[in-house]
């Protein structure tokens, strides 16, 4: 049997890779994928703790996170498409028209 801490460490590694992806990439779509990776890592930790404590609420929360992620992706990709139509680019460094 696998100790729960292995799952948590794996979840931490995946979350960190997602965060670094958001930091070092400039393509808005890939930044979005990094966010999905972080959500997924958090879900893995939820399921691991649900298994450890034998409470099914953790799995219900993962269900909600998946639903919210689906809504978030639909709206976010619509935003990216709209930005691409007006600016002809999705490089986040060039989207600086709101700069103060």
């Amino acid at each position, binding site marked *: 049997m696998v100790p729960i*801490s*292995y799952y948590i460490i794996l979840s*931490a590694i995946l979350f*960190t*890779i997602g965060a*670094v992806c958001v*930091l070092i990439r400039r393509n808005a779509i890939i930044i979005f994928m990094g966010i999905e990776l972080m959500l997924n890592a958090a879900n893995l930790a939820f399921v691991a703790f649900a298994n450890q404590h034998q409470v099914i609420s953790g799995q219900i929360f993962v*269900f909600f996170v998946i639903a919210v992620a689906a809504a978030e992706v*639909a*709206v976010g990709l619509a935003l990216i498409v709209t930005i691409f139509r007006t600016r002809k680019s999705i490089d986040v460094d060039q989207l600086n028209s709101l700069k103060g």
Partner: protein
Amino acid sequence: MTADLIIFIILALVSIGAALGLLFSRNAVYAALFLVLNFITVAIFYLLLNAPFLAMAQVTIYAGAIMVLFLFVIMLLGTKKLKTRGLNLWQRRLAMGLGVVLLGEITALFFVQGRGGILIGDIGANFGSPEGIGVELFNQYLLPFEITSILLLVGMIGAIVLTKDD
């Protein structure tokens, strides 16, 4: 070393490798496909953790619907036009340093709190099955479930309004 541990280590390596592929691939389509691979390995972890319903939901919703939406948008915008400049070297190093700090913080927090070491055994067959999830969802979490449906409706309307040609 038990069979479970060997399966876990192989899957973990595939999962981390896919995540690194997402991080470093130049082509957005390859990045999306690496992310699909990562989602599928996480779905197998869910199976190992007695969450069969979530594993299937993960494959259909995440690896299926969401990633198809990503690929669809990438194809729609055109991969050639999606090329972006790389980061400066110092920015890249700063980001990597911050990532290492974040990883250290998460693991340190985990070990300071001292949760862990408890083995994962076989739980009842009902745990994590569609029936178990459904009973809990519709008894304990009915209001959040209904709010989720409204959230999805709002997301759908938002996506249509944002991309509408006017």
